[in-house]
């Protein structure tokens, strides 16, 4: 049940109706049942996996709180992390490993494959679960006593399959001190759901058609301009797709009285790669920072170890996205760029101040990020290299984007700049009803005219 389907909106309407018409004591049960139903519509068998991980980490949390510091406590933590990473590793990375072992043995890559179905959203809910256990271990989070509450934290349907990765310290206060959403929150929630849907169907899916056309037929689409337009189309697709999903998730959570953290902050306006990662998939980048980069030593042990830690973090971040060398290279590419930036910048903090140089820096950063997306989107390494070659050499080619694609991108850019400088979203939420309604109407009209309706293009991050 994709977020951009009629079925999902019927489901959401039913959940909201049941939620608000039920006594408070029943509401968390309704959300839990709805979340398992939502997950089950994809593959009900994997609810067992979800329940197993929930049980393991719920129990681990309780143990960790009871056991005093020492090896036993550490053993519980390791057991929990092993279980999470074990499931994640098996479902997500087994065949990748098997393919490389087979190739090393001189056999065909597929010869050792197992027929494994990747459970939906496993990368997200395992990371969310692990963050809880680690926080309890560190004493930053109290163990949750009520198993229903914990299960809901893991499987809450708005963010179950593609995040944002919500920390326990953000989720449980909303659950335990639940208050009916204010009219401001409802306005925000409704607007974000509509905005997310528009981003997905009118922007991402239109750019997806261009990107799929390019990456699906490289031989038939030679040329530098062609390659750049195909790659930029994918760059725009993935942003609108993922941030659209996130907006919908945040909006739906608001309608249910929950407040999710920001996950995107206009990443393509970033002035550096460091800035980009402060704006892109923020819940993952902060997770990697808190649970990987800092435990590895962060920047506390000298320059070279900082670079090493950056590389390791980004390599693992790349691998988190998918089991392929391409994702590793994508992660490594960003790790290398971050390291180079760090080397050039030294210990000076990253500036987000808009100067006359800012547009140039943003364009360069955008270009570098686009090159990285080649590895993210291409089917395999040879195809990635072919695209890279096309980006930097060969015939001129032709623009794959139509003028209205460019129009959509320009409108989005202007809105992003306006949000960055003028905070239009908050101003709109504060504006008279007629202004809010007009903005919503225009947005929905854009969805009507540009929304890809008859072809269902899945959210990109659903595969992770």
């Amino acid at each position, binding site marked *: 049940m994709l977020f951009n389907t009629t079925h999902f909106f019927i489901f959401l309407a039913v959940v909201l109706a049941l939620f608000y018409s039920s006594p408070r004591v029943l509401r968390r049960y309704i959300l839990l049942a709805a979340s398992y139903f939502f997950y089950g519509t994809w593959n009900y068998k994997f609810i067992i996996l979800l329940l197993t991980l929930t049980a393991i980490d719920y129990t681990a949390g309780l143990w960790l709180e009871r056991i005093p510091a020492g090896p036993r406590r550490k053993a519980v933590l390791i057991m929990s992390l092993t279980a999470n990473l074990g499931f994640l590793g098996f479902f997500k990375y087994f065949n990748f490993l098997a393919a490389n072992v087979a190739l090393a043995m001189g056999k065909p890559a597929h010869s050792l494959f197992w027929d494994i179905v990747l459970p939906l959203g496993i990368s997200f809910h395992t990371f969310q679960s692990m963050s809880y256990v680690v926080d309890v271990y560190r004493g930053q989070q109290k163990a949750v006593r009520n198993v229903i509450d914990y299960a809901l934290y893991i499987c809450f349907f708005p963010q179950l399959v593609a995040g944002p990765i919500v920390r326990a310290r953000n989720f449980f206060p909303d659950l335990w001190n639940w208050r009916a959403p*204010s009219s401001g929150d409802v306005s925000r929630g409704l607007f*974000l759901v509509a905005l997310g849907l528009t981003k997905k169907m009118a922007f991402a899916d239109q750019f997806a058609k261009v990107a799929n056309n390019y990456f699906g037929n490289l031989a038939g689409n030679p040329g530098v301009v062609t390659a750049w337009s195909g790659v930029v189309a994918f760059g725009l697709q993935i942003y609108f797709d993922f941030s659209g999903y996130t907006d919908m998730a945040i909006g739906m959570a608001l309608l249910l009285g929950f*407040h999710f953290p920001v996950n995107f902050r206009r990443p393509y306006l970033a002035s550096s790669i460091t800035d980009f990662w402060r704006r892109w998939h923020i819940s993952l980048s902060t997770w990697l920072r808190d649970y990987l980069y800092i435990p590895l030593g962060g920047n506390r042990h000298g320059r070279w170890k900082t670079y090493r830690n950056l590389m390791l973090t980004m390599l693992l971040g790349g691998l988190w996205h998918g089991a392929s060398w391409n994702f590793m290279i994508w992660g490594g590419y960003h790790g290398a760029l971050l390291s180079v930036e760090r080397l050039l910048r030294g210990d000076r903090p990253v500036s987000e101040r808009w100067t006359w140089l800012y547009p140039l820096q943003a364009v360069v950063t955008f270009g570098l990020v686009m090159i990285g997306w080649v590895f993210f989107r291409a089917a395999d390494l040879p195809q990635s290299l072919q695209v890279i070659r096309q980006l930097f050499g060969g015939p001129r080619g032709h623009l794959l984007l139509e003028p209205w694609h460019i129009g959509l991108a320009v409108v989005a850019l202007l809105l992003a700049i306006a*949000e960055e400088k003028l905070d239009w979203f908050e101003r709109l939420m504060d504006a008279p009803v007629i202004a809010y*309604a007009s903005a919503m109407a225009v947005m929905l*009209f854009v969805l009507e005219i540009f929304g890809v309706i008859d072809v269902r293009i899945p959210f990109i991050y659903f595969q992770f």
Partner: protein
Amino acid sequence: MSPCPEPVKSAAPIGRPRGRFAPVLACLLAVAGVFGLDALLFRTGLYTAWLQPDSSTGLFEMILRREQRSQEKAGNNLVLTLGNSRFGYSRKVIDQLPVKPLYTFRDAGVAGTTPRSWYYMLREIDPTVRRYRAVVLGVDDYDDEDRYYNPSNDVRDLHYVIARLRLGDVPEFAQSFTDADLRWAVWRGGLLKGIIFQSDILEFLTNPLKRIAYVELCRQGFAGWSYDFLDSTRSMTGLQIDWSTYKITFPPGTDEDQRDSVSSWLAHGPEPQTGRLAAFRRAWFGRIIDRYQGSPTRVIFMRLPRGPIPRPDGLVKKRSASIREMAARPNVVLAPEHVFDALERPELFKDGMHLNREGINRFSVMLAAETARILGPPEHDTGQAKACPTGGACFSLPRQDKR
């Protein structure tokens, strides 16, 4: 590149406190706004005047407007023909007959349409139901044979008539589709027409000036082009079908489209007879006939030449004959079933279902003659004609000579 207004995590409402129902009111206003914008663009002709003429909607509109315009100068003895691509004839051939034809033929047929589209075409062309002496409907058979093709679920009808679909039409139009997904698509598209026009709009936005120039060109030339159009001279001479095995022997040089049309239209086994075609015909021909009830306009059904080699009569046990049933209604006439049988020869067809140029020429002459024979000589309407809102004159000559 982000219109992304990410929310600040906040448990407390930000901004001016609003009433509890303000979000609901705002959403209702927003929905009204979307419908308003949609109506402004797509229900006023503001955009539909610039539709791509080669699209389904554009072609339908082009033909409809041509016929509306023609009413101003085409006289009073008009006969309107409606059908799909199988109802191919030449008005020019009729006009050039040595003996001046009794009636002026106008062709509102659109390739790929069904009686569902014809109903809306008629409603727009003839709002007074008095503009034409007769409406001639070309049909494949007076009996009902269910084939693989289910006209009820032909979504092309939505695309043909979308510009003319009113809000009040949407429920009935949607219900006429039997497939639930299509019904939903029709509801959606009927209420928000921009969804149906989307590909047209995107193409328009790709090069607006080119579109405008092309539409202008078509406006000026379409009537002439369609009048002077000469169909293919290719023929199916040499075609043979063994009806016991459905084995087809094609003449040399037959292309894939021709082969497909023979195998899909003619040489196929019987489909289960569920009565869906009869239901569809009763619904939409029924609506057309209802519309002309009490009108001086005659509704004439004509069975078109069935193909280069017609399917044997006993091949399918047909369970009903909806069009024969309709002959009992006042004002409805069925042309003799076998009147065009002489044209059912391979040398007069360009493929398995369409007449070629020679076939069209002969059919045009026969069509004019048969229509004149059914209607008889036109009566003088001096003093009886009155101004018609669509232009020209409406006539009011009740006729009784029904066959």
